[in-house]
């Protein structure tokens, strides 16, 4: 899997963190309206970890996730993906890296309602240029994994909220990502289905070793993660993983 861009010299004693942020800064607007969303954030994300980024709305946690997921470039500071400076990733290479390395789970699902569940799930593979038969096989396998195989042909719009979020997880999984970014994954779900979705995410994290980054203001969800990073006004206030 994308060995060329991701393989980095790894020193046996301390494995290279999958994502390493150093003094990352990001602001929006100009002049008087300038708003600093991130004011120098530094931390390492180890492979296989589950991390909760917690903070109030407007704290900069979504911006941090966007920067970590390479959707946004930091204004200052460095971000390394397995030791590779991400600033060197541009255009098609950047797109490919994002496609192969990351899976996304959003609160708002972002499913195309008029398309079938399977169509929605295989979208990342379609973008990656995977062949039709292979797409179908892997898409169905991902749906099977989330107990949605019988819904494969249904239109996405006809699913319940919990089912939709499971489809989204299937879509995030389908390309065998190394990191799943989940932005308020249970925000739109009732507590029961929310718990089911949480279980699925943590199972993936434990059993498949997929690094899980959850952005949330739900403390209960944050408590289930290995590590909790509290962010306020663009700065890390508390990081439970620093000592570890």
């Amino acid at each position: 899997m994308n060995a060329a861009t991701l393989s980095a010299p790894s020193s046996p004693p301390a494995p290279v963190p999958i994502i390493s942020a150093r003094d990352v800064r990001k602001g929006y607007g100009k002049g008087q309206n300038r708003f600093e969303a991130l004011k120098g954030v530094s931390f390492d994300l180890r492979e296989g970890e589950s991390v909760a980024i917690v903070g109030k709305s407007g704290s900069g946690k979504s911006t941090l996730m966007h920067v970590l997921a390479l959707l946004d470039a930091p204004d200052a500071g460095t971000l390394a993906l397995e030791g590779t400076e991400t600033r060197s990733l541009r255009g098609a290479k950047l797109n490919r890296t994002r496609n192969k390395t990351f899976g996304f789970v959003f609160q708002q699902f972002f499913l195309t309602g008029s398309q079938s569940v399977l169509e929605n799930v295989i979208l990342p593979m379609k973008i990656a240029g995977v062949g039709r038969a292979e797409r179908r096989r892997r898409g169905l396998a991902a749906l099977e994994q989330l107990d949605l195989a019988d819904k494969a042909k249904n239109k996405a719009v006809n699913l319940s909220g919990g089912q939709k979020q499971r489809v989204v997880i299937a879509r995030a999984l389908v390309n065998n990502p190394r990191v799943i970014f989940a932005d308020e994954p249970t925000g739109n779900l009732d507590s029961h289905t929310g718990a089911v979705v949480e279980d699925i995410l943590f199972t993936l994290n434990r059993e498949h070793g997929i690094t899980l980054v959850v952005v949330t203001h739900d403390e209960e969800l944050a408590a289930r993660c290995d590590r909790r990073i509290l962010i306020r006004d663009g700065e890390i206030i508390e990081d439970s993983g620093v000592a570890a």
Partner: protein
Amino acid sequence: MKTTDLIASAISNTFRSKTRMLLTILAIFVGAFTLTLTSGLGTGINAYIDDTVSGIGASNAMTVTKTSADAGAGFGGDSGPAEYDPDAVSAGGVGPGGGGTVTAMTPDDLDELASIEGVTDVHATKSISTDFIQHDGGTKYVVGVGSLVPGQTTQLSAGVDPDDDTDAYELVLPTSYVEPLGFSDAEDAVGATVSIAITDANREQHVIEATIVGVAEEALASPNGTSIIPNDALTDTLFETQNIGVPADQVDRYAQATVWFDEDASDDDIAALKDRLADAGFTGTTVADQIGAFTTVIDGIVLVLNAFAIIALLAASFGIVNTLFMSVQERTREIGLMKAMGMGSGRVFSLFSLEATFLGFLGSALGVVIAMIVGTGLSAVLADSLLADLPGLTLIAFDPVSIATIILVVMVIAFLAGTLPAARAAKADPVESLRYE
């Protein structure tokens, strides 16, 4: 994303908002429909002219007349009244461009023509005027005599072309003479004998019997028109009969001649040949020259009609822009998601331009198909009513090349219209698109 997947996605996206798609396609349809009909009109009329070209003359033949002192080479060439010329004869014209008064050609002129570089053969056009034609003692009708030089053909509704190698007197009768002469139909006329009366220089009338071997359809630019076409044997006999009593030195007078040149001659070669003819005191007119005026007028009309169709298409293209802008607006999140998942801007651009192109394809294909059905129906109806006097004319005809061109042109217009919304989609920032409040 693979290109095939991109195309498939674009096509399936097109059908997502069906009402909007349908309305956009309708707008394109109107343009494509009009364009197809107008260009079909041009194709139909020009094809008809092309069909009748061989009736006017072979493509490697040129009608040559002797240039009169002040009679110009063509339209607009005459200025003021012409001076009397005792040598002038009326040219019993072959096709358009003939007619008028020209200076008669003598056998010497023919020899001179034959000696001009590039001329491979010379054939004098014998001008014959008969008194009447009659069948089986019936009513007498005035008739002209045309001639069919080698390379010319006529559109026959029955029978065959006259045989120039036989001694028997044969002729082809124009279709308008079939019923007046007492035949039930064209087939009935073939094989019958008619009498042709001709008066010689001594005012003495001669009657010559000839066999009808074919019946010619009337065509726009046919050599016969309402003239009979005799074979060589009959032509010679009629010519000799007409010239009985003419002083020997006046017999061989021809209004015009036909010269042949190399079949592979280029336009430049033909122009050079015309210059050499002009230097020798002759005016040469090719079939292309004669047809040219017709075609130019029709092309001009079709061009104006096409311009209207293009205007309709331009209006439709704004519809495409609008539709796609709405589509981009609606699918902001989807675009953002695809970009977050690693879809490049170029591919997003392609996806939306392909959608526009596909809309253009649907609209134009629909327009073209329906226009072809309507056009064919219309031609069929008109051919039996309004245009019944012009057999062989299909008013609206379609040729695959112009149909394909129309579809392609509409697709290109649609693509261009789609670039604006597609560029907006391609520019979309995934973070911005995925933000929700």
